[in-house]
């Protein structure tokens, strides 16, 4: 072995590692991107956020503010769905490496 000749297992593993990294990145990115979308939307259309224009608003206007709902969905995904999925991707990768 030298710098020109490497063990075969090393380069063969690289695409799998890269693929696992991409999947983890995608899963971890979905929630924050959704939150970012909601924030950008709130800045672009502030009149859809009742907190910015509170005069004369009723219960449902306070309870349901579309950009904040998008932020909430992103947070829900990030906190509830994404962590377990990332764990399972890494576990699958570990099982495959052992096998």
């Amino acid at each position, binding site marked *: 072995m030298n710098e020109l000749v490497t063990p075969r297992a090393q380069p063969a593993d690289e695409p799998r590692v890269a693929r696992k990294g991409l999947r983890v990145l995608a899963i971890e990115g979905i929630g924050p991107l959704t939150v970012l979308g909601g924030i950008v939307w709130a800045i672009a259309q502030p009149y859809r956020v009742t907190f910015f224009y509170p005069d004369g608003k009723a219960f449902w206007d306070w309870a349901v503010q579309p950009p904040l709902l998008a932020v909430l969905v992103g947070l829900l995904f990030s906190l509830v769905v994404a962590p377990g*999925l990332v764990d399972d991707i890494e576990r699958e990768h570990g099982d495959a490496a052992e096998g």
Partner: protein
Amino acid sequence: MLPKAEIAHWLFAAGFLFFGLVLLAEAVVGTEVFRRRAWRACLWPGLALLAGAWLWVIAIFSTFSTLHLLAHSVWAQAATAAGGVQLAVVRGRLTSQYWSLVTAAALLVSGASFLVHEQNGWLFARSAFLHHLIGWTLVVAAIFPVGAALRPRRAVWAYGLAATWVAIAVMLFSDRDIAPIFGHLSDLAGGGP
């Protein structure tokens, strides 16, 4: 105290956005990894059944128009059927890949229901435009579960179905009870002086 229709549509938009993200996650990691945890496997059918239950509640309050009552009932029935069948699939009671044709039928019937119950043209008002757009989106999206039944190994069907629900969420978030579309609002839609 009853919310306006647009409020209910925004709440459904949030639900569909979460549904779309869940489907997208399943497409990214693959069905095998996604269903490793029982609660996660039941998310998609559970959300569909929940949507069905809520649509039945909304159908009860849609008595102002027979067409709206029928349309909401059709959507409720379609969501309940698709959710129920998918629940049986993830629990292993149903094994054939062709059961995803039930989801295709649900999308097709839901889309047709949108198109049939909108009596006005595309540019009558924003809500009319969105009815047409959502209706045709659902009709076209029925191809994804059909593809999943015929060529189940291709990931494009899962990504397509996920993108469909994210798009439907964006459309529903855009909905207003009375609002112009591309600067146009019919006098008959409430846009007149």
